């Protein structure tokens, strides 16, 4: 694990930790409902700006909903989607990568072919098309992203499996009669897990960014769920006069993704991993 | 006898680590001076320090470094750049990676001549061809247009030697030039260097860990241990009469057929070369020396054993042991 002297890692961990705590207990603490509209209190600015009120610390959106509560709820959505997507894509990608790296030959050729096909697909476009054609929902976004974002898992799992496959202790396991599945589970997986952890954090960040893009274009998380991307989209019409409407969720999004990237980089430095492209 | 290179009390440190603590030696014109020692004794660092090619965190210090009578210790980067490749050249241990893979052999050779002397490309190419022939490279015209990966290790090392000679240097520093090569090729390269030395009046500073090479080609030897030159002298004298326990140990390590009797243990020196850090004092070899005593915790004095034979030891040995 990384030392506590690694400033980047510590900062990243603090950010992610803070967002996690805020997401879990935040919406409950503010005393407002993220979905309750109040058309008499629309677009109230944050308390530090002129016209702000102490009732709504970060103001209200165009339908009078408390912005802070929506922001904190949005954190839940981002984290939820990030983690679930990565679980799916991680399972798919790691399985493919380990199989290809372990067996080599035709199986590896097939895996490489699948990876190449996946890389050729314009991800945002396809995700948009799927959601657009089937209809937006949280589950659909998670499944689509999960089925699309497995490539880096596959590449890293494959490369590291190939490195380990020919090492002595793996050969020793072969000799003592272990089955391929046992070898993959007991020898290979534990030793590639540190590399995969790095990929996990980076992919969570990517999933969060992608979901925000999809929701921004209206083809991601459906309203009234307060995805940060959606909040930015809804605020776009007012941004020239009330820039804070898009700045607040944007800063939140940027900070969370930055935090995850810092954690990922810190892990990479700690494990001495080279970037495997 | 004119000295090409005189190094007095060279010291090199990397942060708290003292890679070289006290190295003094002289290379005469037309002679081969070998620096010999185990891995980690600081011999390669010494060579780089002379050229001022140390890594960024390396600091060198010396009483004097004289090259052909000029004090190059105080030379600026620009001044050293003019000397390197021109009057002082260096070849390295790994021929496989020491040439730029993206440029042809010809362009890499001509570039050094054109950098230091204003020559046309044609003239430079002619000189390159001539030198390649001299070092024993066949079909030199063709080689000009070839890339390094198309040549074998031995050929690449010959190219390195030819490249080093492009500007007709006075001193050639060779850092373990044959270690990475096959044994037969080793012998050829060493013979080539000896011939060139004779022909061109070169001074050669040869770094090696191999006593066999020292015995073959060196006119003069300096034995290094943990950053210090602990014994130096003419090759014949040193082999005939080694006085420092380390030198004696090194020579004993080389099994000589006929002298070794079956059942006899091969000579060895237990332990490894220590890394010396700030604050160290006394003789660095005392932890591995069979004859060490109390007095060895003090810095070893410089003693002259014979004409041109110097040793740094409190208790130098004479004659045969046991």
């Amino acid at each position, binding site marked *: 694990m990384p030392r506590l002297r690694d400033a980047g890692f510590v900062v990243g961990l603090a950010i992610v930790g803070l967002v996690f705590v805020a997401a879990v207990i935040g919406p409950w603490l503010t005393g407002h409902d993220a979905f309750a509209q109040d058309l008499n209190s629309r677009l109230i600015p944050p308390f530090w700006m002129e016209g702000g009120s102490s009732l709504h610390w970060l103001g209200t959106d165009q339908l009078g909903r408390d912005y802070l509560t929506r922001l904190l709820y949005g954190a839940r959505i981002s984290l939820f989607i990030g983690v679930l997507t990565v679980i799916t894509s991680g399972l798919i990608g790691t399985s493919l990568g380990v199989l290809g790296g372990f067996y080599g030959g035709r199986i590896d050729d097939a895996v490489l072919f699948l990876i190449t096909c996946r890389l050729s697909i314009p991800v*945002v476009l396809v995700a948009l098309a799927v959601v657009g054609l089937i209809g937006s929902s949280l589950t659909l976004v998670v499944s689509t992203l999960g089925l699309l974002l497995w490539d880096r898992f596959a590449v890293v799992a494959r490369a590291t499996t190939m490195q380990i496959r020919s090492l002595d202790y793996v050969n020793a396991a072969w000799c003592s009669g272990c089955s391929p599945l046992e070898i993959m589970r007991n020898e290979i997986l534990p030793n590639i897990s540190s590399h995969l952890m790095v990929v996990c954090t980076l992919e969570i960040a990517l999933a969060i960014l992608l979901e925000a893009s999809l929701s921004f274009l209206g083809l991601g998380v459906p309203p009234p769920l307060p995805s940060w991307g959606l909040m930015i989209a809804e605020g776009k019409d007012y941004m020239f006069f009330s820039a804070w409407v898009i700045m607040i969720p944007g800063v939140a999004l940027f900070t969370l993704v*930055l935090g995850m990237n810092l954690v990922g980089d810190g892990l990479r430095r700690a494990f001495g991993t080279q970037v495997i492209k | 006898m004119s000295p090409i290179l005189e190094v007095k009390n060279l010291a090199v440190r990397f942060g708290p680590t003292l890679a070289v603590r006290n190295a003094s030696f002289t290379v005469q014109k037309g002679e081969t001076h070998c620096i010999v020692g185990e891995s980690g004794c600081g011999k390669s660092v010494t060579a780089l320090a002379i050229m001022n090619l140390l890594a960024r965190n390396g600091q060198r210090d010396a009483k004097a470094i004289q090259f052909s009578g000029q004090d190059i210790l105080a030379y600026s980067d620009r001044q050293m750049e003019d000397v390197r490749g*021109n009057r002082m050249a260096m070849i390295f241990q790994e021929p496989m990676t020491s040439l730029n893979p993206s440029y042809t052999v010809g362009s890499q050779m001509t570039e050094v001549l054109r950098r230091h002397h204003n020559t046309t490309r044609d003239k430079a190419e002619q000189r390159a061809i001539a030198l390649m022939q001299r070092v024993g490279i066949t079909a030199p015209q063709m080689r000009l247009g070839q890339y390094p990966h198309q040549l074998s290790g031995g050929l690449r090392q010959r190219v390195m030697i030819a490249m080093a000679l492009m500007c007709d240097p006075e001193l050639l520093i060779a850092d373990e030039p044959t270690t990475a090569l096959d044994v037969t090729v080793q012998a050829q390269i060493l013979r080539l260097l000896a011939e060139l030395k004779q022909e061109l009046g070169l001074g050669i500073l040869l770094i090696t860990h191999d006593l066999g090479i020292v015995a073959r080609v060196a006119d003069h030897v300096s034995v290094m241990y943990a950053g210090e030159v602990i014994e130096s002298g003419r090759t014949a004298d040193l082999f005939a009469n080694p006085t420092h326990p380390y030198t004696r140990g090194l020579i004993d390590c080389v099994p000589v057929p006929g002298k070794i009797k079956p059942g006899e243990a091969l000579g060895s020196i237990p332990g490894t070369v220590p890394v010396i850090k700030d604050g160290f004092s006394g003789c660095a070899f005392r932890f591995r020396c069979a004859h060490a005593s109390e007095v060895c915790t003090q810095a070893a004095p410089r003693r002259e054993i014979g004409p041109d034979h110097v040793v740094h030891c409190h208790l130098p040995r004479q004659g045969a042991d046991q």
Partner: protein
Amino acid sequence: MTRFIFRRALLALSVVMTVMAMAFVLTRLSGDLAISIAGPGSTQADVEVIRKAYGLDRPVLVQFFDWTRLALTGDFGNSFFFKDKVATLIAQRMPVTFTLGFAGLGLALLISLPLGILAALYENTWIDRTASLLVMVGQAMPSFWLGLILMIVFGLQLGWLPISGTGSWEHFVMPAVVLAFTAVPALTRLMRSGMIEALGSDYIRTARAKGLSRSSIIFKHALRNAAIPVVSIAAVQLGFMLGGSIVIETVFALHGVGYLAWESISKNDFPVVQAVVLVLASIYIGLTLVSDILNALLDPRLRGA
């Protein structure tokens, strides 16, 4: 060399075929296409008419081969919404997307190459740390948000640049900047690590021992080798940019292929969506081929002799 290109081209073709199949499946995902085209409030009879008109009553495989056959000749059918040939629509909008892509890549290279080289030369100094900071910010920045911020600052408050449309070159500045921002992190990192590796190599030590000048060592010897992976990745990044242009084109209302795709998705215009996916994927595949060829051309060791 030709054998290498041939094999790569063959691989590329197989990938294109697979993506074609995928694009086809994609549009059939929402269930009965005829119903979606007919729209809400249509009767069963209407749906049947549409089904026959668009050939949706035939077996799926037949539909697929038909589409494939036509697609290979460049005929992607007609758009439901625009009442025009899909191929024409795409061709009309390609120049905008390409301009944006090349402008973005050019800008990205202009920033990341010097930045990466400087970061490597002054490794672990404030210059390097600033470069790292820029890389981190670029990686975390949502592109659509950056676009909006630039619009507010440069479009509204400073009034320097127009915020939407495709009238003049000024319309492309902000979009190109946003696009460049997405590629700068990866390219800078690559340039930096490549230079650090090159500068620490044995052949650079030889170059220094030859007394070559500092600029010669950095630019002639080190950069020549460090730039090889950067150049080939740049080609691939262009592919990503073209695929990801949909977000930026939508934010800035640039009528390129991405914007077309966006409109078509919202209007369930399947032929267009299918075709755009295929075209973008093919361009990406072509660019990876170019990238491999560039790699082989620049690195003498790969040319095979």
